[in-house]
């Protein structure tokens, strides 16, 4: 087990599979597209392990995943006017919630989920990378390929939008 490439694949790809799938699912909306994107990202990652730069395998792999997602989104745009979002995203199946499963919690998760889903992609991705993956601004900057200052302002605006959206939901419910 001393082959460095093999170790790279383990440390860069396999251990971050969940993070990769989560990002892809949030960016693409449905299970099948996310699976496709993650699979091709893994293949690309395998081929590019030699060219992996920087000390942060997670950020590197997540950048590959994000590329595969944006490729898919671009294809979708040219192919048809198909919605970027599919009901899957708003549905209650296939996500890791129900374990303790009381209705109040499920409702809360649904609200947060809906609000994140409603964000434009550039805001959605920084929220996912920061709040769900716990990545630093520097790491996010490497994944999204924008300067750290941009990460900061995007995240700030993303949270503002998210807060507004969650507040709107409350108003709609109480009115």
């Amino acid at each position: 087990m001393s082959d460095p490439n093999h170790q790279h694949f383990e440390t860069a790809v396999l251990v971050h599979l969940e993070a990769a799938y989560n990002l892809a699912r949030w960016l693409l909306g449905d299970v099948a597209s996310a699976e496709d994107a993650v699979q091709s990202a893994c293949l690309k990652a395998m081929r590019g392990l030699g060219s992996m730069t920087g000390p942060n395998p997670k950020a590197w792999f997540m950048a590959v995943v994000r590329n595969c997602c944006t490729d898919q989104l671009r294809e979708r745009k040219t192919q048809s006017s198909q919605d970027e979002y599919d009901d899957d995203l708003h549905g209650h199946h296939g996500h890791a919630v129900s374990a303790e499963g009381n209705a109040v919690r499920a409702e809360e998760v649904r609200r947060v989920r809906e609000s994140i889903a409603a964000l434009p992609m550039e805001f959605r991705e920084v929220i996912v990378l920061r709040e769900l993956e716990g990545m630093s601004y520097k790491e996010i900057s490497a994944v999204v390929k924008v300067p750290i200052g941009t990460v900061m302002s995007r995240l700030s605006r993303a949270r503002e939008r998210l807060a507004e959206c969650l507040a709107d939901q409350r108003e709609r419910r109480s009115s």
Partner: protein
Amino acid sequence: MSCGQVRQYLDAWLDGELDAMTSEALAAHTRSCAHCTGLKAEREALIARVRAANPRFEVPARLRSAVHSLRAVPGARRLPLLRWWQAAALAVAASALSVALTLLWVGLPRPGADPANDELVARHVLSLAGPLVEVGSGDRHQIKPWFHGKIDFAPEVRDLTPLGYELQGARMERLAGATAVAVVYRIRNHPINLFVWRAAADGQPSLRVVRARGFTLARWSDQGLMFAAVSDVEPRDLERFAQAFAPVN
């Protein structure tokens, strides 16, 4: 430090992205400013709320196993880095394979003049160069009548849209010198050719899923008809597709 600056740096501050001096300046201002204290509390609550909800998605089991078996992908084996993994990959693949084998492999002898996998793959590849369909329709009620008078059997055309397989159309085919038809579906942009022809010999109805030249084939027979679905999708995708057609047994 002004309220405007607090607003600007609030998130970076809460995320621990600022140096100690700036952080202290922000803290000092916020302590003495009710407005900023409120702002900070609101933002902290939002962050906590999102993290508590933790709206993640579970990795589908099939993706997990697909990624783990990637090391065994024949196409990737050309890469030097994979050479090494074959031993490890075998272990991973073996467990998946043993399940697949018990489920799918029935060592069916190929009946008489039924086309070989190679021919099916060749026809599939040729169809990709076009035309993929001679009658293009997502409505099975338009495709079935199109076969009338062209063939002496009636292949069932199923609507599998709910499963993600979109009906694209159909065309006539020649397989092993006999007339056949191809019904075309598509999943996630991957075309699937479902070839149907009259069995040359009594075939066993059991479903087999095999790989040939990098393609996946699912073959089965039902009521004297032979079916072969060919595509470049994962075996599981084709297995699921075939199960929607294949007789239950």
